[in-house]
Each structure stands twice: as structure tokens, then as C-alpha cells.
């Protein structure tokens, strides 16, 4: 009997393949309809001019050309960069708090939970809390500084004010990642370093941080994604203002598509944002999948 290149699958293999199909079907269906298809549709939409109601007209790269020459787009881009840069404070601050809390004292579990608390709040609540905090007449900041600074009403400060608010839950998240990571640090290495007389910083840099690399990886990834995605706080605290000074790509897109009925233009902004994140997602995917093969 000659062996052909493809052999007939056994009964069991067929049954398994069928099972795989049916098990995957619901998730793939939902995901395909609500995630994969919309990405493709948005890309197509970005080449059209459409108000959502009448016929749409093909404009090719017109939306993109308009975008790259628009003031608001450049402000949004600049703000996204500010978000990205300042958000990178979250992992080190989270690490600092994690180190601070990594002791066994009475009530430390409650303390850890309470420090983590801000992450559990909705962006809306965080936004309201900080809007209140920044209020120039009675906000806590005004009380602390002795005078009121209308942070959210000042073009120079508004983005920083919002980023500062966003750092609150983000730092809490990084803290939890590091607290968990610290539990798996090899105690023998630490002891060895101590016996060798290493000072605190050296131990941190050479022994601890390398062991925290998985946590750092996730912390940085989630922080970058969070910075680029930010919408809720901007919407609640400033609506992108004053005069679009605090807008970011995500908010600009929403505004253009919904408030100004320019769906094609909005889609173009979304595509730009998507491409920016895509590079990052690809990097993350490759790292993740490489550890899979390992």
C-alpha cells in the first residue's frame, strides 16, 4: 500500500476538529462582527465623506490631507505625546508604593486594598472627583495652595491636570502588578546580596528589577495603551477644551464623528490612532508569542 501525502483523518481527529469548530463558533462570530469587521469598515469609511445620513461621497485621501493640515489634529497629537510621556511615571511610582507596602505589619492587607482602590473607580467618577479637586473656589487644591488656580479652564494647564488625575488609578494598577511580582522574587539572591554588603539601591537595580521584568513589561504595555486610549477623563473633565487645548486623538475623533456629523473624517482620525497603536500592539504580540514558543 502506498502512503499518500495526505492521509484520511481518523474518526477521532474528525470529531475533534468538529468540536473545535463548534466551540469556537460563538466567540469568533461575536468577535468577528463587533471587532474585526468594524476595523475594516472604519478603514473603508475613512476614504469617504459622510454625514451619517445622506449618500456618501468618495474622497480618497482627502480626509487625511485635511487632517494633517488641521490645527486641532496637531494639538491632539501633541497632547497624546504629553499623555504618553507623563504616563510613564506610573510604573516607577507604582513600584515605589509597592516597595513601601511590601512589609508584614498589622493592617497591611487593608492598606494595600485601599491603595489599589482608585483603579476600581469608573473614569467618570475619577474625573468628577478631580474636577472637584481642581475647582478654584472650593477645591482641595485651592485650599492647599491658598489660592484658586482654574486648572481646567487654563489652556496651558488643563492637559496636565487631566493626566495627573489619570495617573491616580494607573499608578494603583502598576502598584498591584509590582506587589504581585515582588512575591515571587527569589529571597536567596536578596540575602546573598545583603551578606555581600550591597546597599539598597544596588540590590534594587541588579537583583530585584531583573526579576520584576514580567511585571514591568505588562505595566509598561498597559500604561502606553492607556495613555493613547484616554477618553473618559477628557470627556468628563474638559470636553477637549478650552478651545481644544486638551483634546487627544481619541476625543477629537468622537467629536468630529458625533458632534459634527463627519463620519468619514472621524474614521480617518480613528485609523491614524489605530496605526499608531498597531505598531505597539505588533511589538507586544511578538514578545508574547515568542515566550509561547519558548
Amino acid at each position, binding site marked *: 500500500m502506498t502512503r499518500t501525502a495526505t492521509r484520511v483523518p481518523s474518526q*477521532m481527529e474528525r470529531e475533534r476538529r468538529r*468540536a473545535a469548530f463548534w*466551540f*469556537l463558533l460563538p*466567540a*469568533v462570530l*461575536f*468577535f468577528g462582527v*463587533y*471587532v*474585526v*469587521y*468594524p*476595523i475594516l*469598515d*472604519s478603514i473603508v469609511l475613512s476614504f469617504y465623506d459622510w454625514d451619517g445620513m445622506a449618500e456618501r461621497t468618495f474622497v480618497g485621501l482627502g480626509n487625511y490631507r485635511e487632517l494633517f493640515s488641521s490645527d486641532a489634529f496637531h494639538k491632539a497629537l501633541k497632547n497624546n505625546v504629553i499623555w504618553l510621556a507623563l504616563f510613564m511615571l506610573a510604573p516607577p511610582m507604582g513600584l515605589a508604593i509597592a*516597595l513601601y507596602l511590601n*512589609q508584614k*505589619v498589622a493592617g*497591611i492587607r487593608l492598606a494595600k*486594598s*485601599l491603595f489599589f*482602590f*482608585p483603579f*476600581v473607580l*469608573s*473614569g*467618570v467618577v475619577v474625573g*468628577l*472627583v478631580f474636577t*472637584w479637586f481642581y475647582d478654584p473656589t*472650593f477645591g*482641595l487644591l485651592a*485650599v492647599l495652595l491658598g489660592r484658586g488656580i482654574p486648572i481646567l479652564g487654563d489652556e496651558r494647564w488643563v492637559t496636565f491636570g487631566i493626566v495627573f488625575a489619570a495617573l*491616580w488609578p494607573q499608578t494603583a494598577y502598576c502598584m*498591584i*502588578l509590582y506587589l504581585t511580582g515582588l512575591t*515571587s522574587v527569589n529571597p536567596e539572591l536578596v540575602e546573598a546580596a545583603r551578606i555581600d554588603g550591597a546597599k*539598597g539601591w544596588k540590590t534594587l537595580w541588579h537583583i530585584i528589577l531583573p526579576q520584576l521584568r*514580567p511585571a514591568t513589561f*505588562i505595566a509598561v504595555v498597559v500604561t502606553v*495603551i492607556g495613555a*493613547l*486610549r484616554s*477618553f*473618559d477623563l477628557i*470627556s468628563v473633565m474638559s470636553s477637549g477644551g478650552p478651545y481644544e487645548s486638551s483634546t487627544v486623538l*481619541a476625543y477629537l*475623533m*468622537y467629536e468630529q464623528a458625533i458632534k459634527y456629523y463627519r463620519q468619514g473624517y*472621524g*474614521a480617518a482620525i*480613528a485609523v491614524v*490612532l489605530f496605526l499608531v*497603536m498597531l505598531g*505597539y500592539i505588533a511589538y507586544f*504580540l511578538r514578545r*508574547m*508569542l515568542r515566550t*509561547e514558543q519558548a
Partner: protein
Amino acid sequence: MYPTPIERWKPYQRWIYKISLPLALILWLLPLIAVMVTSVRSFDEVMAGNYWGWPRHFAAYGNYREVLTNSPMLKYFVNSCLITIPAVIGAVALAALAGFALATYPFRGNVLLFAVFIAGNFIPFQILMLPVRNLTLKFGLFDTITGLVLFHVAFQTGFCTLFLRNFIKQLPFELTEAARVEGASEWTVFSRVVLPLVRPALAALAVLVFTFVWNDYFWALTLTQGDEARPITVGVASLKGQWVAAWNLVSAGSILAAVPSVVVFFGMQRHFIAGLTFGATKG
């Protein structure tokens, strides 16, 4: 253990640390404490500018009652429940099936599919917004609870599938093989062997998805319009416009919006943290 365990500290250092903890906590949670204090303050005191003194009248009952009865807050709260709970059940169920398939059956495209689920989790909402909105309109589900539930189930399935697939992959292969040798059908392997073993993962996911969906603002804003299907996140945001000077009521409303996720968090902390940090200690 790093930093130096406290047992090795000098007594005065230990003392300083223990004192610093509650102080640090108060500092960290100061904005929140302020909101809670304001939520029990009476409106007169708010108008009179008394924000920081000890409340002369404790209007907690009145404030919360006002928020619950004179505004659609209660309806928004119910909407949030109606949206979140089915979304959690749906996403976790779909992900359990898909995660099991991805973890146990080697087939062409397995890794690709897995990568799609991972990637989908990190994409910006904006690239989905318009088509999802238009689809929802076309299905006649705009401004409905169902519309929001369907989206959340679809989107959260990405993250949950990733999570469960990794979790199931770590289960010993012999268990499923043994069941199959005994002639169990694939469904039985899934439901009787694997499912019970992944219960902690399911719990962690349920808690996480609950928090994410309950706290969602963007999609509620995009897919609803009136008060009918509006969840509490959008409701509280609109409060800000309605009662600009009545910060005591806005505070009370915010607390109401935050309570469920907080309760779920404190009740299921271990699961919550396990879910969030899965992968933080690998390798």
C-alpha cells in the same frame, strides 16, 4: 524579602513606618474622602461655601434620597445592572468555550486566531466606534440594553479568551487524555473535566469583566441617547451639567455609581488581583 523586612528594623524606624501608613493612605485617598464628606453635607452649607468644616447638618439621607428619587439615577443604576450582568455571563461563557478549543485542539490557524483575540483587546475603541454604532442602528438595537450587552460580550470575549486559553494550557494534559480514553465526548471533557478546574479563573474573569463593563462610559455614550438604556456612568457625568452648584448631590451620585464595583472588588479581591496580575510572575 525586599525591602529589608521590618523585623530587622530598629524600633523607632518601625514606629515611624507604622505611623506613616495611615497618613499615606489619607493623602492618597484625599480626593475621595473629600467627595464622601461633601456627599453628606447639606445643600445650605454647600451654598454657604462651607466645604471643609465639620458638617453642621448631616444631610446624608436627604442627599441620597434626592439623588435617587428626583433624578433618573435609580433607573440608570438598574440599567447598569441589566447591562453588566448578562455581559459578564456571556463573555465568560463564550471565552470558556473558545479558550478551551484554542488550548486543546491543535489546528492550522490556532495561533493566528489566538493573536487576533489578543490584538483585539488592545485596539482603540475609536476604530470600532462608527461601524459598531451603525451596525447597532441597523439591527434596531440603538439605545437599548441589548445593544450594549451584545457589544460588551463581543469585546470582552477577546481578553477572556486569551486569559482562559493560557490558564487551560497550564492544566496537565493527562487529565483530558484520560477522559477521552474512557470514551468521553468532547463536550463531556469540557464540561466535566476542564470547567471545574478553571473555576478560579472564571471567578477572576467575572469580577474583572464586571468592573470593566460597569465602569464603561464610552460605549454607553456612543450607543445610547435618552434615559431609556443609559447606565449610571453616563448618568453621573450628565449630573455635572444639571446640578453644577449642588456638589453635595453630584458627590452622592458619584458614590452610588462607584459602590457596586467597590463592593465587588473588596468582596472578591483575591480573584480580582489574580485576574489582573496573571502573567506578572511568569518566567
